[in-house]
């Protein structure tokens, strides 16, 4: 069977306008129910809060003043000086007549569309006991809702907090059926783990995932993983050349704790600012150690029992 190239996203948050079309297109395509309890969160324009069982794309909104911007620039510069692996400036640098840094330093509003990372080493996939999760021919990680028994181990296995077991679909569940505030919409696939499938069904039909297709500004790009990483590297170099040292990539390094992610991001601040872990590590990386330690412990238990029967009178 011929293996298609690994597919992935490159989400360039520097051009995201926070329109949330990705959230809607995703829900619409995947028939995911409305999430949350229709209350204003007070978290800027973010009212869906995080990725979850029914929200597979989530746009974060961060308002920052001068100090935070300066800190982001500093931490970005520090990354550069660490001698990170970096391709040089792209050969065809944009003919910008003026490379002075954008001069709006008093305030900025960051928007970033988050999604399942489709990790190279996927914790959720590794720990799933039923085989409900599998790696597709596109290198993506997908849950089979007809197999999952809702044990929830994958939820614990994800270092990014992406997977969630679908319950009733609202934060403050009510059991009045309906669509309006205070009512509970019908929730399909209740009780099984849910997350982004990278539109596995659409990929099979050679279609672009719903979120990437709808994205008005191409902040969400979709394609072969290698070319996504390449364009991410080009873009970050371009921004650095414009003086935006706060730009950095997230997930483009195959040596990181999850072996690199299928969904690569360009961020303008430290990952935790966007709700992303700063140094995630797939839990099963330590599994051999755990098994070894557990083996010793179990042997100890057997030995203790032996001693007990030998000594115990």
């Amino acid at each position, binding site marked *: 069977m011929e293996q298609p190239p690994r597919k992935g996203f490159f989400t360039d948050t*520097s*051009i995201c306008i926070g329109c*949330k079309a990705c959230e809607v297109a995703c829900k619409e395509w995947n028939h995911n129910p409305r999430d949350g309890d*229709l209350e204003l969160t007070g978290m*800027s324009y973010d009212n869906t809060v995080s990725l979850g069982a029914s929200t597979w794309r989530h746009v974060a909104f961060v308002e920052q*003043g001068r100090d935070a911007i300066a800190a982001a620039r500093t931490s970005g510069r520090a990354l550069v000086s660490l001698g990170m692996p970096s391709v040089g400036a792209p050969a065809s640098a*944009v003919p910008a007549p003026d490379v002075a840094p954008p001069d709006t330093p008093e305030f900025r509003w960051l928007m970033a569309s988050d999604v399942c990372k489709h990790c190279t080493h996927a914790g959720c996939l590794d720990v799933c006991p039923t085989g409900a999760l599998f790696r597709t021919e596109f290198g993506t990680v997908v849950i089979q809702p007809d197999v999952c028994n809702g044990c929830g181990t994958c939820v614990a296995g994800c270092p990014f907090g992406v997977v969630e077991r679908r319950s009733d679909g609202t934060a403050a569940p009510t059991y009045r059926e309906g669509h*309006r505030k205070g009512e509970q919409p019908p929730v399909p696939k209740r009780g099984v783990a849910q997350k982004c499938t990278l539109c596995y069904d659409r990929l099979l039909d050679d279609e672009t995932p719903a979120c990437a297709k709808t994205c008005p*500004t191409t902040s969400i790009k979709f394609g072969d993983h290698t070319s996504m990483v390449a364009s991410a590297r080009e873009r970050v170099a371009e921004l650095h050349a414009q003086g935006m040292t706060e730009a950095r990539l997230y997930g483009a390094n195959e040596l990181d704790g999850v072996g690199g992610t299928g969904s690569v991001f360009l961020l303008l601040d430290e990952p935790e600012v966007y709700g992303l872990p700063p140094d995630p590590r797939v839990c099963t990386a330590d599994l051999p150690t755990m098994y070894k330690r557990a083996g010793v412990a179990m042997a100890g238990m057997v030995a203790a029992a032996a001693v007990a029967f030998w000594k115990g009178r």
Partner: protein
Amino acid sequence: MANADCIILMGGNMAEAHPVGFQWVSEALAKGAKMIHVDPRFTRTSAVATKHVSIRAGSDVVFLGGLINHMISNELYFHDYVVAFTNAATLVSEDFRDTEDLGGLFSGFDPETGKYDPSTWAYADPAGGTVTGPSGEEHGASASARAAGHEYGSGGPPLEHASVLRDETLQHPRTVFQVLKRHFSRYTPEMVRDMCGISIDDFEYVARTIAESSGRERTTCFGYATGWTQHTLGAQFIRTAAVLQLLMGNVGRPGSGIMALRGHASIQGSTDIPTLFNLLPGYLPMPSVGRHDSYREYVDSIGSKQQKGYWAYAETYVVNLLKAWWGEAATAENDWAYDYLPRLSGAHGTYQTTADMRDGKVEGYFVLGQNPAVGSANGRQQRLAMAQLKWLVVRDLNMIESATWWKDGPEIESGELRTEDIATEVFFMPAATHVEKAGSFTQTQRMLQWRHQAVQPPGQAQSELDFFHELGVRIRARLAGSTDPRDRPLLDLTWDYPPDAHGNPDPEAVLAEINGYVVDDRAPLSAYTEMKADGTTAGGCWIYTGVYADGRNQAARRVPQGGGGVTQSEWGWVWPADRRILYNRASADRDGKPWSERKAYMSWDDAQGRWVGPDNVDFPVDKHPHARPDPSLGGAEGLAGDDPFVMQADGKGWLYTPKGLVDGPLPAHYEAAESPVRNALYAQQQAPARVLLARSDNMEAPSAGEPGADVYPYVFTTYRLTEHHTAGGMSRWSPYLAELQPEMFCEVSPELAAERGLVNGGWATIVSPRAAIEARVLVTDRIRSLTINGREVQQVGLPYHWGVGSDAVVTGDAANDLLGVMMDPNTQIQESKVASCDVIAGRRPRGADLQRLVASYQQRAGTTPETGTRAVTDPEKEGF
């Protein structure tokens, strides 16, 4: 837009309101262009802008005027373009007096009527006197179609003839250029700082960026939306930008212009084929009593045969329309059934109608895909007015608030209305969605695109086309045999559209009628130039002629990517004549050569003897750039080779508007009808010619300098969010959209929050002289307190998508309830972007206490229906 070197977005929030259109801005940015967002709020557009400049809502004319002054006084304007293509060199009448001379008023103002007599604004006539309109009246397009900021619609108002005096050295003191220079000289950077709250550094940054991105090699593009139109001087906001763009040579060229960013799928179409009181299709005016009593008066008033350009053929368009509507009943003998048209007597806009409704003068009301109970200014007045109707027909997809106010509206809760007392009959008719009917939408760049029908409407739902066709059939059946002359127009109406498979009228047949045809054989016309004024052709909307050329539905053309050419011309159909950039003759210089290689578009090809380029030239195609026809000739023949503005009566871009606007030939800054700020530019505080509706249900807050102004100390502005659509009828019923912005909120600065004890995520009550509403609070640095004339001015941001009802997924108080109805006299559009309010912490009172709260504020402020209604500011009385 993707071709611009600099994009100024102002009075609009493109990334939020038009995310997909914004991709062209993104593309320009990716190519290295700059984008500056000038707006009271830091929005999602600002977030990706090269720079955001915070401006006090309603002070845009000061800022733009400052830019004009900067460009003129530093000689940064595009001299060759200005001399060649604009009316800068034209001499203005000796009788004209500017605001400089009259304390903020132009000559001709009548304080009694609150209206201008524009006769002194005219061009000087070489034969002495002035160049006035043919019979002293403008055609509808300029007087009101601009309503929605339709700057490039169908052209300027008529002039008697196109013979004018010009001084191309621009030195004569009565040249438009000198008038302009003097007029804007008081719009200094310091004035911008004091009135707009924009620092001199920021102002200079914007000025420098525009200057560097204009001229032969580069272009700057402006984009605006309702942030400009919804003001008492909205049309003048746009005019100011147009003056600036003409000065900089940024009209008619790639990556230039002023883009109107419109909010509805076919809002352009509904102005072109207007469901508007003052227009007939194709920007022909509705006849007015007294001015258009006879056919001849009517036709002559629209366009003079001696003026330049295509409005000179206005009579042809009129005849074709009448012929299309009344077929054989329209004959030369009966002036093509001109008398079948009803007559206007003044403004009959939606707000005047609402007032009439409230006073019981209107029996029946059709509400079609619109939600005035939420979306119109002064919502309480709207709902109380509807309660006076005999019957109301609401046609919509969802059970909107405009259909349910009688059972769950705010006035039911407050006890002002009792369901059992309301005599209004309400018909709710389910409508068809866009996929359940075929038809065309005209988008914001004038492109018609056909939608094919995907499925049949569900249940009892039906399209507007089917409903109104059926209604027409039944009305005509009831009148059959009537001898009453008033029924003739209905009985003679052409109303025989071939049915489709389901027995409904075929929309393509309607399109064919709109397009126009030869009466004898129904052969479709392919251009409006084929129309005849002798009754042998008929056509419902001349500007759309060509959309059904060759009997093919050109709006349904869908070659992928429009065929790949620069203009992507094989996708949809653009009026007029499938032209993609208007006035594109201006993309070449006086001699017909491109201004620069980089910005080449249309140019004159001597060998072929015609204009060539990627587009259809918006000009007589074979007219040599050096052509200088006899000035007495009118129409297309009258256009000189360097008259690119083919719809203006003199072929030039108008820096100065000798006719057509009712509130002044040049933009001048006046404060909003309600403003806590004194106008520092002129003694005149408010726009003198603004339209008022002085009523007890439409009170105004006192402005700065008047007693009681401090009762409503804050400025609020309303806007939309990307997650919702206008009054919510198509978004608040959608769970996916509702969850993204679930509750009505207000945005306030940290300073205002501290002043009023507001907490992020908590509640606030906002009070205006019309209403009080509650909203959740977002405290954010995206809203800045601004220093205006040395004092802090706080602005409150209010999205207007929510309404009070019980059927939507999410409901909430309506921001528009706070607004009063004060209108731009050119467009009759209300001022939604600036008004005065107070903000207090906590939720609003319920029941009858709500009106008590509003009344107590009114009392404290001493407002009466007369407050704020004086046209001319009286310096004595105002104490300075």
